[in-house]
């Protein structure tokens, strides 16, 4: 098996599905000859031609709107938003249109499409090249929201997203694009949407996380283990629909829970995890459900390492709930 970076795994998934299915059409800003600003689409125009991988004008609304139109008329669009921070001009197309089309038409029209976009901090991108907007989308029925944290999952989940009959927002943790390598099978395979991944087994504390926070939590868990705390790390990976049973099982297993994400805390995705537990497993809890998150501020530039949860902060929370 090849050892690929997460970025290469994304690229591999696109190549694989484009070879498999000629309906798959990739477009967005700079995704053609340049191969995308992160090079996730490198080589696609060369291999599949301009009709199947091409640059668009600077219009996220147009990109996603056109994707909906392609999806209802026989193609399988996989569009890219250059940074998740720039998805907001397309918010209306995503939330009002793609997500609600099947429902409002009684299934007469559907939008099998994927929106890929790099999200999150860690590249000194400041307010507008660092955001984690998953909660905006996870609150939108009709959408699926996926965030991989390993090269294997990146490929398998992206292929599953492309094959999915409903619109999928595929958020790629840009901080892991090149920093993370892992085994990736050749050819096509899928990772089921709506499943979580156990990144580490443990019996004392359960940590829920996703995307770029997974390796941070794994590190914190390793350090905690040195101090005798066994941490169970769950990579949520499909944020919507969420495998709630698995979440509750993992929470009950230890009765001590920490939820970690980069996005601001208030009304962030972590709140849903806490709420699920407070509603369905509160009697199993032996400690407060703690959240370790970005602060409720915009994303700063110079101090981003203080803003993003790091091993230090996660570990502190693990120790806190373990000793409660």
């Amino acid at each position, binding site marked *: 098996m090849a050892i690929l970076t997460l970025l290469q795994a994304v690229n591999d998934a696109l190549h694989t599905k484009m070879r498999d299915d000629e309906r798959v059409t990739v477009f967005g800003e700079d995704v053609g000859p340049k191969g995308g600003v992160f090079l996730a689409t490198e080589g696609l125009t060369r291999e599949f031609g301009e009709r199947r991988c091409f640059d668009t004008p600077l219009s996220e609304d147009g990109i996603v709107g056109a994707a909906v*139109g392609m999806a209802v008329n026989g193609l399988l669009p996989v569009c890219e938003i250059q940074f998740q921070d720039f998805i907001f001009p397309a918010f209306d197309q995503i939330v009002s249109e793609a997500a609600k089309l099947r429902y409002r038409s009684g299934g007469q029209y559907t939008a099998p499409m994927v929106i890929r976009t790099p999200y999150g901090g860690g590249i000194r991108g400041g307010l507008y090249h660092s955001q984690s907007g998953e909660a905006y989308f996870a609150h939108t029925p009709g959408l699926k929201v996926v965030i991989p944290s390993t090269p294997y999952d990146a490929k398998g989940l992206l292929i599953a997203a492309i094959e999915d009959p409903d619109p999928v927002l595929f958020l790629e943790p840009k901080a892991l694009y090149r920093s993370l390598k892992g085994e990736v099978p050749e050819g096509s395979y899928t990772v089921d949407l709506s499943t979580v991944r156990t990144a580490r087994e443990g019996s004392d504390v359960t940590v829920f996380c996703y995307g770029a926070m997974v390796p941070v939590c794994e590190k914190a868990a390793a350090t905690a283990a040195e101090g005798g705390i066994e941490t169970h790390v769950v990579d949520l990976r499909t944020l919507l629909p969420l495998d709630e049973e698995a979440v509750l099982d993992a929470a009950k297993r230890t009765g001590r829970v920490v939820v970690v994400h980069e996005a601001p805390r208030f009304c962030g995705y972590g709140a849903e995890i806490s709420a699920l537990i407070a509603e369905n497993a509160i009697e199993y809890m032996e400690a407060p459900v703690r959240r370790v998150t970005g602060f409720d501020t915009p994303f700063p530039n110079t101090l981003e390492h203080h803003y993003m949860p790091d091993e230090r902060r996660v570990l502190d929370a693990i120790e806190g709930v373990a000793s409660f």
Partner: protein
Amino acid sequence: MTETLKMIEADGSAPSFNGALDDKALVYCYRTMLMVRAFDDICMKLQRSGRIGFSIPNKGVEATQVGAASALRSTDFFFPSYRDFGMALHHGAEPVEMMHNMFGNASDSARGRQMPVHFSFTKPLRFFSISSPIGTHLPQAVGAAFASQAQGKDDVSLASFGDGGTSSTGFHSALNMAGVWKAPVIFLCQNNGWAISLPSSGQTASDGYAIKAKAYGMPGVTVDGNDLLAVNRAVSEAAERARAGEGPTLIEAFTYRMGGHSTSDDPTKYVPAEELEKWAKKDPVLRMQRFLAQRGLWDEALEETLQAECAAEVAAAAKEAQATPGPTLETIFSDVYETLPNHLRRQGEQAFDLAARKGDADAGGGAFPL
């Protein structure tokens, strides 16, 4: 403003008509216009009597809708606005199916989820599911047009919208991309004088709407929207260009909304009475009628027959729709995704359970059936 294409004179003569529509087709167009009016009328009555909640009148704009529809095939992809159901009727959509939507009942293709007038058909024509946000369907029409072309089909997309719609985000994104992609799409701007209470003169400072095509490198055409033949010609020409790979066209159909914006609106508060009178004289249905009469295709007897047919058909449709039960509770939960996810299944089960325990909701067979 660019020159306005016009074919039917006030007296009904149409010297430049070249027979693009044959006699049967002409009468059929007229019939659709009457059907639109009949459907409108009964919906107004149903709304006033509290049987349906809402409707959107089409009086005044029938020639634009039907003229455009008559220029296209039912394999073309219609991306309509909420004021366009005449296009669907023209291609054979059943009034009763539309009525199910007006009542939001169990037989509605959208299971009563949408407001009235938000139709959706996949047959006998591709009439895209209408949504309320203005302008969002324009980039979708471009994407669909791109897809037709990519799959080697010569179908075109028609995106229809109002003067207000030209200010929306979707208008700009769509026309710009369509221009760059040379997508086979027709943008039909129905300038009906108003966007709710804003006169079209307040919507933009441009000299008419067709001129906006220049910003996107496509031809712009202004057509008398109360003249069915002129609209038919403009749309036919645009469709021909599109099918030939020559790209998109923006058409401004200059027409007039002769009623309120919707049944919730009181236009007397802001529409000058003189303006309404002026346009009443240009009534598109009368105009078409005079044209047909001049060609010997219309007489009082035909009028009576058609009116009676249309009235009967919509009345029967309304009766059937009214008698159809409302959607069942499970329709709240279905069609969110292709497969019902667990969290929604649970929410549905809880709703059924509560209905069973506390009443006040139609629990169907008792168990949540999805």
